[in-house]
């Protein structure tokens, strides 16, 4: 257990970051034009269902990142920690996160069923939707990952990463001219982001339990984070280029503004990452505790914001 005095600030950090992310997502949807709208004269399942559908992907992304991050740590992919009991505890956290992921994914399927029933009258066509089938595949893979984590298997990491894929391929990539390549791009983008964010969450948890253990896995995480940032920056910039055609559009349109915000937060995160390499990674076990906590805490808050921006951007209509 973390020291008792730490429980409240840690809870404050998590609640603050998650609530800030949820509010950011709501603002992005309202101001960027992606907010659910009711069309006059048409049946609908109501604003509550529409907003729940719009917001639920955010906690899903967070649960997936936590599953993946703790699987990285608990599976030993970041190297040995000082105590092997930390590995099995990390896998237990991964297991809980994976079940939350499953539940939220099934919630989305239920909401889509409500929407279909409201518009069409029955839910017979539910399984005809590629999105619903992708969500069910995701829930199934995440459930298998949860079971693997429960049994302490390292397979939880590949399983959790696989669970991320179907929903991504059922989205925009399907309508691209070359679905295979566009799909590979979005998969690379999301896997990199998930490993990066999830890894940091797991390391933060580790630092609270065992400072020395953090130092031993940090250099590997740092290399992974650098690679992930490079991969997701390139795929993100190129994807944005494909949708925002000109500099004017970047400022004129809600979509462009969200892209700019996302880039700004990413730049801040890269700056924090560079500071982390300088002040923490290079010093290894001699790094100062306050540097570790300050950098990791700030990064965590920014990451929750960038996740919210990403979830909002996915629902914002691109400029035409």
């Amino acid at each position, binding site marked *: 257990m973390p020291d008792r005095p730490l429980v409240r600030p840690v809870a*404050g950090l998590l609640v603050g970051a998650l609530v800030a992310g949820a509010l950011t997502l709501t603002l992005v949807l309202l101001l960027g034009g992606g907010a659910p709208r009711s*069309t006059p004269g048409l049946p609908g399942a109501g604003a509550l269902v529409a907003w729940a559908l719009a917001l639920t992907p955010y906690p899903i992304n967070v649960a997936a990142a936590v599953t993946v991050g703790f699987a990285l740590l608990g599976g030993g992919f970041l190297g040995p920690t000082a105590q092997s009991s930390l590995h099995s505890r990390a896998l237990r956290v991964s297991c809980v996160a994976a079940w939350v992921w499953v539940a939220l994914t099934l919630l989305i399927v239920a909401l889509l069923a409500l929407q279909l029933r409201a518009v069409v009258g029955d839910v017979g066509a539910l399984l005809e939707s590629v999105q619903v089938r992708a969500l069910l595949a995701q829930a199934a893979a995440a459930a298998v990952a949860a079971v693997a984590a429960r049994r302490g298997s390292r397979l939880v990491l590949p399983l959790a990463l696989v669970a991320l894929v179907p929903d991504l391929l059922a989205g925009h990539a399907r*309508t691209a001219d070359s679905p295979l390549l566009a799909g590979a791009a979005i998969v690379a983008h999301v896997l990199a982001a998930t490993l990066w964010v999830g890894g940091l969450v797991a390391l933060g948890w580790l630092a609270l339990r065992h400072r020395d253990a953090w130092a031993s896995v940090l250099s*590997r995480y740092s290399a992974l984070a650098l*690679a992930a940032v490079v991969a997701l920056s390139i795929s993100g910039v190129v994807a944005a280029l494909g949708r925002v055609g000109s500099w004017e559009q970047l400022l004129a349109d809600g979509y462009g503004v969200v892209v700019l915000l996302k880039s700004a937060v990413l730049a801040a995160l890269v700056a924090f990452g560079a500071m982390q390499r300088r002040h923490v990674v290079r010093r290894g076990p001699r790094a100062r505790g306050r540097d570790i906590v300050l950098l990791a*805490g700030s990064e965590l808050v920014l990451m929750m914001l960038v996740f919210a921006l990403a979830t909002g951007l996915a629902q914002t209509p691109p400029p035409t």
Partner: protein
Amino acid sequence: MDIARPAAEQLIAMRGRATVALALLSAVLGGALLVQVVAAAPAIAHAELASSDPAAGARVKTLPDVAHLRFTEVVGQPAALSVTGPDGTDIATGEVDVVDNQLSRPLDSEAELVKGTYTMSYQVTSADGHQISGTVDFRLTVGQQAQPASAPPPAAEEEGGPSTGLVVALVAGLVVALGLAVLSVGRLVGGAADA
């Protein structure tokens, strides 16, 4: 233990460097590939309304048997279409039909022709799973005058965006939440410094 540590660290650092080099290489290759993909695929967007029958803003002398809307991409269920006349009645009847990129629904041929503005409200789901909805107005130039509507015709939703009050409240909440997070980090830093 202290003697063994630098060697272990060196090993980890070397592995780390190899990982970084490999990742950079694959990122550059992937990036080059992506540039080609995007150059080749300019249109990754939601489906949009391409055309309709009756067309937007059209002035027609008779109501068609079937209202058609065509989209820029393949669309599917859940889909809905209503056609509301000047007196507020929905004259669309029967099954909503979605085939490829077309949404259609028969109109009530027995409906009395009422002069004025008709609003076609549509909702379809694009291939990427997003709901696309909107309205198309056209005018019927012959027929009787609209009676005072029993139900007022649906007003198109305002494009003005959310109310200022709501946005201010959300921003205030965001500031409070971020403040809580930052304060908590500060307290954690303080705790780490004491330790």
